[in-house]
């Protein structure tokens, strides 16, 4: 039983990390159908900028805010300099552009920052919490809490605000959205800024657990992408549930079957789910008009 609880805590911690990354995918996807493969780099930037600002003497909260603002600015720049000029291009081309952007950001970070691993102090100390016979680090609660908070905020944004609905409308039909008076250019810029900011916030929260270096983005983006696909791309609920499920699969496989197969098992489950439900657990069914 103790071991089981430990596996659950581990799964929730890792799953919340995946969920945080997956949540970042949703806004840009909702606004443009583009899967932004530079999302992992925003997470990395959030961690790296916070580490360097913190080491330079800024208090942690201020360093975190700085990192989020800079990452958002880079997100806007990515949209203005790379995505907007290619506006007419098919979605696949735009996705490839984001892969290029991710290589660029990674390369630039290794020059601007360095190639070493870094960590941030845990927000509430390193003293493990004993709960139901197993242990959990306080930082895990921060990550899990952060994932829930962002989920709630996104959910409210998309269902309760005009702006959120404008984002959805832009994705649905850009021309029609323009006709009803939505500034689609602004919506795109906003969605990149928000996605980058969410990514950076995720980076700040997970760095005390996962550590950060210039090249952690790819791995995080892949896991986050898998989580988002499992839950249903574009749905904040899907990102949260998908992330947590992926983390739990991995932890339970490592605990009860073998750590050698934990990723294989997780991905087989994902494949199985997508085979039956191609749109993911919570993804909207799409009907193509011909």
């Amino acid at each position, binding site marked *: 039983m103790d071991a089981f609880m430990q*596996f659950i805590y581990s799964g929730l911690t890792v799953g919340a990390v995946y969920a945080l990354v997956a949540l970042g995918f949703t806004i840009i996807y909702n606004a443009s159908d583009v899967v932004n493969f530079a999302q992992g780099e925003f997470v990395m930037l959030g961690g790296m900028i916070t580490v360097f600002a913190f080491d330079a003497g800024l208090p942690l909260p201020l360093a975190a805010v700085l990192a989020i603002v800079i990452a958002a600015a880079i997100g806007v720049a990515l949209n203005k300099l790379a995505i907007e000029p290619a506006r007419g291009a098919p979605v696949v081309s735009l996705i490839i552009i984001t892969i290029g952007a991710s290589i660029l950001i990674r390369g630039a970070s290794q020059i601007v920052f360095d190639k070493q691993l870094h960590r941030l102090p845990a927000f509430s100390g390193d003293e493990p919490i004993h709960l139901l016979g197993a242990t959990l680090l306080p930082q895990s609660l921060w990550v899990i809490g952060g994932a829930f908070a962002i989920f709630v905020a996104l959910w409210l944004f998309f269902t309760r605000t005009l702006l959120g609905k404008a984002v959805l409308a832009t994705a649905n039909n850009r021309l029609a959205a323009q006709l009803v008076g939505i500034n689609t250019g602004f919506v795109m810029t906003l969605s990149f800024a928000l996605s980058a900011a969410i990514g950076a916030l995720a980076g700040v929260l997970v760095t005390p657990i996962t550590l950060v270096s210039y090249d952690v983005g790819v791995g995080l983006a892949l896991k986050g992408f898998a989580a988002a696909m499992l839950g249903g791309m574009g749905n904040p609920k899907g990102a949260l549930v998908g992330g947590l499920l992926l983390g739990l699969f991995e932890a339970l496989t490592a605990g009860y079957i073998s750590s*050698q197969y934990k990723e294989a098992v997780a991905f087989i489950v994902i494949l199985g789910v997508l085979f039956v439900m191609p749109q993911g657990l919570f993804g909207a069914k799409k009907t193509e008009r011909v």
Partner: protein
Amino acid sequence: MKITTTALATLMVLGIASAAHADIKLGASLSASGGAAFLGDPEAKTLEMLVEEVNANGGINGEEIELVLYDDGGDPNKARTFATRLVEDDEVVAIIGGSTTGTTMSIISVAEGEGIPFISLAGAIQIIDPVREFVFKTPHTDRMACEKIFADMQKNGITKIGMISGTDGFGASMEAQCKEVAGSHEIEILAQETYAPQDADMTPQLTKIKSTDGVQAILNPGFGQGPAIVTRNYAQLGIELPLYQSHGVASDGFIELAGADAAEGVRLPGTALLIADLIEEGDPQKDVVTAYTTSYEEKYGEDVSTFGGYAHDAFRLMVDAISRAGSDDPSAIRDALEATDGLVGTTGTYTFSADDHLGLDLSAFRMLEIRDGEWVSID
């Protein structure tokens, strides 16, 4: 097009030429960027620094060294291209490099084919076993690290252990080597777990090992963030068994990443370089290690690493061989290299022979323990 340009700019090659009238051309292909940058970066910096130093002191037998340095980004294909370019276009007399085992294997085929002496900076035993005529290496092998660790376990009466290894090249290779030599040290491996290089939590694996009956100690072959996270999870779970890490994380950075509290009591085999202050007066390595540490830290403002030390030793071996050979003929340099006897480096004291192109023994490793956030020698 944009993507191609970006990729090219990112992966741009460092071609560094120093003195214009250099007489001895030394080639290097290192992984100064990419995933193995933590190896190649200090190695490249070390070579550049040492070449400057030697030239400022009059070069080798009055001839200056010109270093031709390429950054292969950890890609074996690029390493092969650069090795070919070093030999054919730059006409170097010897090559240092191959930060990783993969890039080393690429360079080996060129060096052996063209008859150019080559000192590798990578760990795997396959590089010098079987012995190749023109290939030498400076880092100790994974197998030696395993033997050193197992010897310490035997000393402490530990016979049954659990292993948790990274699935990256380093972790997988060392895991395999450790399994091979465990039997001869009467060590029984009761539990074997792995983690992927970027995993964020290893508590399930550690919980499993912890609940395996009879495990007396845990060994974690790996480098990068994995071992730091394992160490922190170890403390989180309150596991009381001794934790052994590998030489892959033998740096002050590891203590910082894992946190001094969690790292308390962790043991690993490391080199003299790590404990420069603790080496006793009279130890032959004292002067070498102190000189290198002082000038590196002064020039670059960062701590030395074991990996930079490998490059330091390779360069010293090469300079020593070239000066003894008295010519820059590659074959003469090779013969002089093989005749190296008792050259003191940061990693250990090298004595090459026709059937030993590594030239180190277990005494090169020192068993270290972390106490109060500092390295302590426990040999």
